[in-house]
């Protein structure tokens, strides 16, 4: 668990944007892994199987949050905005230069915000590729999709993210 907990927690943090929720999701993910060890197929890599469970747990929690948002209406927007702050805070690395550090944090926050604006599937595939460094085959295995689907989906996800970060790019990022 110590070997994979940082990567799982980082993935879930980028997935949900909240360090508390990411911790809760990470806890649930590891409990499911522990309870599902008997069903693990030794032919696949363990981290692929672990990421798959983490992504599914994030998907399920996101769906529940979306249903809750539909019931609660506009009040959910404020709560979601409130949840993003801790994620950033958690993810905010220390910087030697405060100004540079602040700008970096602003960019990271902007990227995180752009990720959260992406569709969940696009977010997951970008995170699995650009953050966790999985190749297309492992991404396909983790998301249980084909390699071609990974290629096209990742391309579209990057296109959307590029659009979202256009101003950032234009800003000299």
């Amino acid at each position, binding site marked *: *668990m*110590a070997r994979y*907990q*940082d990567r*799982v*927690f*980082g993935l879930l*943090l*980028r997935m949900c944007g909240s*360090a*508390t*929720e990411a*911790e*809760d999701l*990470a*806890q649930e993910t*590891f*409990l499911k892994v*522990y309870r599902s060890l008997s069903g693990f197929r030794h032919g696949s890599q363990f981290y692929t199987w672990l990421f798959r469970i983490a992504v599914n747990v994030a998907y399920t929690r996101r769906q529940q949050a979306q249903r809750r948002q539909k*019931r*609660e209406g506009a*009040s959910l927007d404020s*709560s979601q905005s409130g949840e993003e702050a801790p994620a950033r805070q*958690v*993810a*905010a*690395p220390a910087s030697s230069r405060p100004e540079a550090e602040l700008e970096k944090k602003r*960019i*990271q926050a902007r*990227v*995180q915000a*752009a*990720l959260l604006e992406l569709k969940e599937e696009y977010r997951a595939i*970008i*995170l699995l*590729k*650009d*953050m966790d460094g999985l*190749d*297309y085959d492992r991404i396909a295995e983790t998301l249980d999709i084909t390699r071609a689907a990974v*290629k*096209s989906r*990742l*391309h579209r996800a*990057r*296109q959307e*993210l*590029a659009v979202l*970060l*256009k101003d*950032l*790019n234009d800003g000299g*990022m």
Partner: protein
Amino acid sequence: MAGCEDFDADLSAYLDGELSATERMKVQLHLNVCQACHDEMAALKRAAGAVSRLPDVQAPASLAPAVMQEIAHPSAKNSTSRVKPVTGGSVLWMAGGLLAAATVTLAVLFFARNDQGDHKEQQLGAAPKSEDTTAKDQAQKQSVPEKSTESRIEAKSKAQDPKKEAPEFKPAAPALGPAPTLPAEPGGIPEALPPKPAPKIMAEPQADTARTEPPAAKPDDPKPAGISRPAQITSQQGTKPAATPAPGANNTAQTNNSGQGISAPKPESAPPPPADVAQPSAPAKQGHASGLAATLAAGQLVQLRVNQADYNELLTRLKKAVEAAHGTLVAEAELHKDDVAIGKGPQPNTVPSAPAAQSPAGPTPAQAPTGPTPAPSAPTGPTPAPQKPVKLQKFELRLPAEGQAAVLALLEPYAQTNKLPEGPGVGAVRTPPAQTPPPARADAAAIQLQIEVVPPAR
């Protein structure tokens, strides 16, 4: 040249190094000539770089202990679960649920208290009653086994003593009906059956006997009613001609039967002399009695004809009658049948007083022409006997005057009718004078009796 759309999906793959060398070459060539694709490639590279440059995060230190605690104590998960935001809708739902739960709890408590109160009241008020009922129940429980025991004993005794059960089955026995349930139909069966012998018919009921009893005068009846019915026998003789009747004999027989009705000479129907021999038809009895009396009065020979089967019994009855009449059987001589049949005279050593066979077989022994000692009064003319006598038995009886009637009554049925036209009467074939009459007593008269024994009819 391929369009930008053909390399759109390959730009990210080109960036990630997921294309083959050929594909990579093609994309490189396209990027060199297509500024738009080159710009897009740069944008994708910046987006990917922005994500990749996101700082790595460390999982909180509480993550692993929380997971291990959750694995060790699953219930602790709820306490460590994330805090859910509380909204107005959820508050309303929670309030409604709490209200419903409180209502149900109050209702349960209310009914529980009522039940407890009622139960207490019942317990307090019905305490003695319950004791009584308990005592009664105990008594019933005790009595029930006693009853059951008694019933068991009764049943056992009944089973051991079948006599007790017998009265219960007695009424059922008549229901089964007596053994002769079949209605006796004595009339039907005898009607269908041929005539039965007398004993079997006598076993039948009286009414049926009268109906089924064959008439005694039946022509086929082998055993006629007897001499006591001379009229019937007379009719039988009329229907049954003689086997080999001689002309004269026939006439004699007809003459004898006519007006007399005596069937004694008929050998085939010669019955044993019954006790009621003296009960023939009144005219015959009177005629015979008067004939025998006249014969006796004339001192003539009394000739009888009797069936061989009935001879011994007649002889016995005769002896008894003589004794009863205080008479004596003086002499007894037997004439040989051959002598009689062929007309020979009697044996000299048999009966001295007995003449020669006077009436061998025919009804008129006097007609026998070839007798060794032809009777002086024998009528002329051959008279072949139709039935040879077995023997001739001659007796001499001495009977007092008062005892003659009973003896004559015994002999009357067997008396031969004398057909002598000028004869004195019945019973005497001829009237040979007694050559050596026994010394007669003063009160006794000598009677010469000759019995012709004939064989039974075939």
